């Protein structure tokens, strides 16, 4: 049992419970999201004591050095004094330049950040509505090609953050950003390797960035991008992707839907994305793979792709975990 001090009150934390859950159980309001170590909205800083290595997984080295940690991943072995990060140290503001409806329920949000942001296409950032509410969104823009930061936000049913972005947030307004984080991005060292990019829904956002980044860097191997949606209304950026296909002979775009419409647009396939991948690219030895979108789909694809021959270290994945309720 370790003691964790926060805002002057001391909380006993059993070794099986995260610092986040212990603080929440004591009525402290700590911002949090995915509870899976991905979204980083439960970032905290230890001013005394030693945080376990696992609680710093995925943090930038500068943050690690200052004893920042993720409260949801922190099983305290020893006593700690912790605080919320000073907003100015980890967040900065950005202005909404443009809002653009890409599909019925997918909004592209173009932002200009006040300070320059060093990011890789395919990473993600936390967007904050206010002090307490933050959610992760993946970057669809490419630093060397795009002037602004672009995110694709899908309206989740009853979603507090995505609903606010779709219905309330206006052009010219500002919001806070944190990050970027994530290791799902292109590295130019392996220009001849074949790339498989696969995702559903707004999983396209990072993949669109990664594909353009790779093509712009002069990637020579084949690039296959699979985008799956429930129905044709969920397919977006179709024209832009077709233009890329026309321009680069090594780029191949494979849109697919689960539900067959009365009239199937040309080039769109019907079926589950994993089956379409197996048919088009049955053998993946030596490929590099990027998977983004719904967590169960990402987990299932990852296994299939590994069995099709891809090396486990060549499979990069961002599962779009939604904010999880605390364990009851």
């Amino acid at each position, binding site marked *: 049992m370790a003691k964790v001090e926060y805002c002057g009150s001391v909380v006993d934390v059993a070794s099986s419970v995260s610092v986040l859950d212990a603080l929440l159980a004591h009525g402290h309001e700590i911002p949090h999201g995915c509870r899976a170590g991905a979204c980083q909205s439960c970032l905290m800083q230890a001013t005394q004591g030693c945080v376990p290595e696992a609680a710093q997984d995925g943090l930038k080295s500068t943050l690690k050095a200052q004893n920042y940690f993720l409260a949801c991943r922190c099983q305290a072995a020893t006593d700690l004094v912790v605080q919320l990060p000073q907003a100015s140290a980890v967040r900065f503001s950005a202005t909404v330049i443009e809002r653009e409806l890409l599909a019925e329920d997918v909004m592209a949000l173009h932002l200009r950040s006040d300070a320059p942001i060093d990011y890789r296409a395919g990473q993600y950032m936390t967007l904050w509505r206010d002090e307490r509410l933050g959610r992760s969104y993946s970057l669809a823009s490419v630093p060397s090609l795009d002037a602004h930061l672009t995110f694709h936000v899908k309206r989740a049913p009853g979603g507090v953050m995505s609903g606010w972005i779709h219905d309330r947030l206006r052009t010219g307004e500002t919001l806070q950003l944190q990050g970027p984080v994530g290791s799902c991005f292109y590295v130019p060292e392996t220009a001849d390797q074949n790339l498989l990019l696969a995702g559903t829904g707004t999983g396209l956002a990072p993949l669109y960035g990664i594909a353009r980044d790779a093509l712009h860097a002069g990637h020579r191997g084949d690039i296959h991008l699979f985008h799956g949606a429930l129905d044709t209304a969920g397919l977006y950026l179709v024209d832009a992707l077709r233009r890329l296909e026309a321009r680069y002979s090594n780029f191949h775009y494979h849109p697919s839907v689960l539900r067959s419409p009365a009239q199937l647009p040309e080039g769109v396939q019907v079926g589950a994305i994993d089956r379409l991948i197996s048919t088009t690219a049955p053998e993946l030895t030596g490929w590099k793979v990027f998977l983004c979108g719904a967590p169960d789909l990402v*987990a299932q694809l990852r296994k299939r792709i*590994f069995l099709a021959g891809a090396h486990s270290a060549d499979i990069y994945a961002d599962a779009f975990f939604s904010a999880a309720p605390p364990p009851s």
Partner: protein
Amino acid sequence: MASLYERLGGEAAVNQAVEIFYRKVLSDDRVQHFFDDVDMERQIAKQKAFLTMVFGGPSHYSGKDMREGHQHLVARGLNDSHVDAIVELLSETLQELGAGESDIREMATIANSVRDDVLNR
């Protein structure tokens, strides 16, 4: 004389072996259902620790860890036939990596030495 772990090629061999072994396990109807953890990264980390142990490498497993780690699988029906299958897949893995007969036997001996702990007997 070099230890089994050194002869097999140490950590690099474990990293290679885990790719082969885990693919075999996931494709084998006898045992794949015990490995259906959705978190593949975590599974691979676990398999690396396990392979390091059966290759006679620096391992932090205790008999107690072995028991606790497999309790839930024993409850789901894990028995001798599954351990036999795993030893078989391990042997095939080492064969593919070019290990000799006697090294494979030595690995199987280590694997069998933890059988009772794994099966919680």
